[in-house]
């Protein structure tokens, strides 16, 4: 009897740990009753594939949220980085090198953000907002405001190839996210992200290089934004100045829904994936419901509002 109760308690504790997944699955099944197409395998795969963009952006965002910061430049990096890769390809760089360059540009922007935020003490909200507009501006100038199509075939493989019935992009997403989860959970630097978010003064007193950890958080965010941009361009077949911009609000909402504290130090990246899919699901359902472009903007705002509400309530309940 006692052991049964213990087992129940343990199961409940575990399932609460991943409650975002329960939430996602529950809401998926519930909305499926009204939007039956959700139960068609092709639709499900479509959700999986479309969710990779906001998923990658949210994971990147989660890293900076862990240290108590925010990165508004993620969507700009997602267009700037692949744009840089494609322009380099156009002047002769081979595709694999161009992809590598794309990722390096993302990391570089993160490094730049991180350095300014830690060394000059510019608030991350301000710094990354400025970076967002700067990068978006550069892309607009470089493309004269046009979408850049005609990407090389090998660049687009990631978005076109299937392994059996499953798109390659889904596997790519799983691998990249697993790496992020292992990094956050199992490495010294990953753990230190949480500690720095929890109490940076205690960390520096105990010999943890706090600035370096914060900079690494921004570099990781840059990397994942570049990955998101690369994956999106491979799927869409073009890059443009604004092609990821609609995902900024969802990328902020997803980690918060997943239980990452806005003040840092807390949260499970596996849940962030569920949060991202939840957000993606809402967007798909809203679109399927035929909501116009204008009210779509409203839905984005609503998402963030709900996320913050969830965060506040959770903090009230758990006393954090």
């Amino acid at each position, binding site marked *: 009897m006692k052991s049964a109760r213990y087992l129940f308690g343990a199961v409940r504790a575990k399932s609460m740990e991943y409650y975002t997944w329960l939430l996602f699955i529950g809401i998926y099944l519930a909305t499926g009753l009204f939007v039956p197409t959700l139960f068609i395998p092709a639709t499900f795969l479509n959700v999986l594939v479309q969710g990779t963009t906001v998923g990658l952006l949210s994971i990147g965002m989660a890293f900076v949220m862990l240290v108590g910061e925010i990165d508004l430049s993620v969507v700009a990096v997602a267009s700037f980085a692949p744009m840089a890769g494609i322009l380099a390809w156009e002047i002769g760089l081979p595709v694999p090198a161009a992809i590598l360059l794309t990722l390096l540009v993302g990391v570089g922007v993160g490094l730049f953000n991180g350095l300014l935020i830690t060394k000059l003490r510019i608030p991350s909200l301000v710094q990354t907002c400025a970076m967002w507009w700067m990068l978006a501006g550069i892309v607009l100038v470089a493309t004269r405001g046009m979408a850049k199509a005609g990407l090389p075939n090998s660049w687009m493989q990631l978005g076109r190839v299937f392994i059996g019935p499953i798109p390659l992009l889904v596997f790519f997403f799983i691998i990249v996210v697993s790496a992020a989860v292992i990094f956050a959970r199992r*490495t010294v630097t990953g753990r230190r992200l949480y500690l720095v978010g929890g*109490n940076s003064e205690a960390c520096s007193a105990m010999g943890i290089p706090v600035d370096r950890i914060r900079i690494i958080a921004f570099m990781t965010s840059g990397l994942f934004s570049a990955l998101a941009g690369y994956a999106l361009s491979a799927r869409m077949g073009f890059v443009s100045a604004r092609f990821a911009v609609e995902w900024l609000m969802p990328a902020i909402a997803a980690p918060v829904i997943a239980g990452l504290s806005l003040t840092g130090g807390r949260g499970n990246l596996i849940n962030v994936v569920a949060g991202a899919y939840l957000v993606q699901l809402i967007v798909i359902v809203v679109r399927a419901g035929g909501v116009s472009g204008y009210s779509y903007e409203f839905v984005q705002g609503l998402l963030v509002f709900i996320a913050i509400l969830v965060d506040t309530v959770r903090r009230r309940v758990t006393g*954090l």
Partner: protein
Amino acid sequence: MAGSGPMLEVKNISKNFGKVRALRSMSFELEKGKILGLVGDNGAGKSTLLKILSGDLQPSAGQIYLESKATRFKSPADAMKKGIAIAYQFLELVDIAKVWENFFMGRELTKRIGPLAFLDVQRMKYLTAEAIAKYGHTFDIEREVRELSGEQRQIIAVTRAIEANPEILLLDESFTLLSLDGRKDIVNFLGEVNKKIGITMIIVSHDLELIKTLSHYIMVLRAGEKMFFGHTDKISIDQIVKYMLP
């Protein structure tokens, strides 16, 4: 290295915070394996001195020698590498992190898998539980530090400094939150550790009885100045108090 002069020498160290002169040209030496009791009224500069020795603050002037070698502690990490460990007066714990994470913060244990280093979580948990048990305490190392009592929090701060196996151990008011028994246990333990391993220690406390029983030397500070430094036998508690007060 042995016999090459004092373990620690502090020479003309000053520290100013704007107009506040927290330390005024302070000098003293401490031999290896000795315990120095550091006393003084509030604001005398005790914590400032320890923070300089642990790399958390930089002196405004002066020089530090470790085993006769001129040394600068550029950061807490640097001081740690040079064999210094400190339990801070205000503990410096991450409240929302678990006991074992706090215990190993800044000196995490890893194991290699191929070219990569991963946290050795199992070992850190095991060693944390073991260390805490050694000091006569039992509490769940999976709990977040904010859920613990003041005594338990202080035990974490003190034991993680001792268990870092330093050459020089700095304890800043590390017994204030302990029960009488807890205090006795840890004082006995420190005495033993000092005899057995010969760790050099600087202990700050307002508990003059404790300072008298534990230390080989006593140093009294007043408003950033050294008022007394000498053998414990050479000074009574009354005299200490006289030196402390203006």
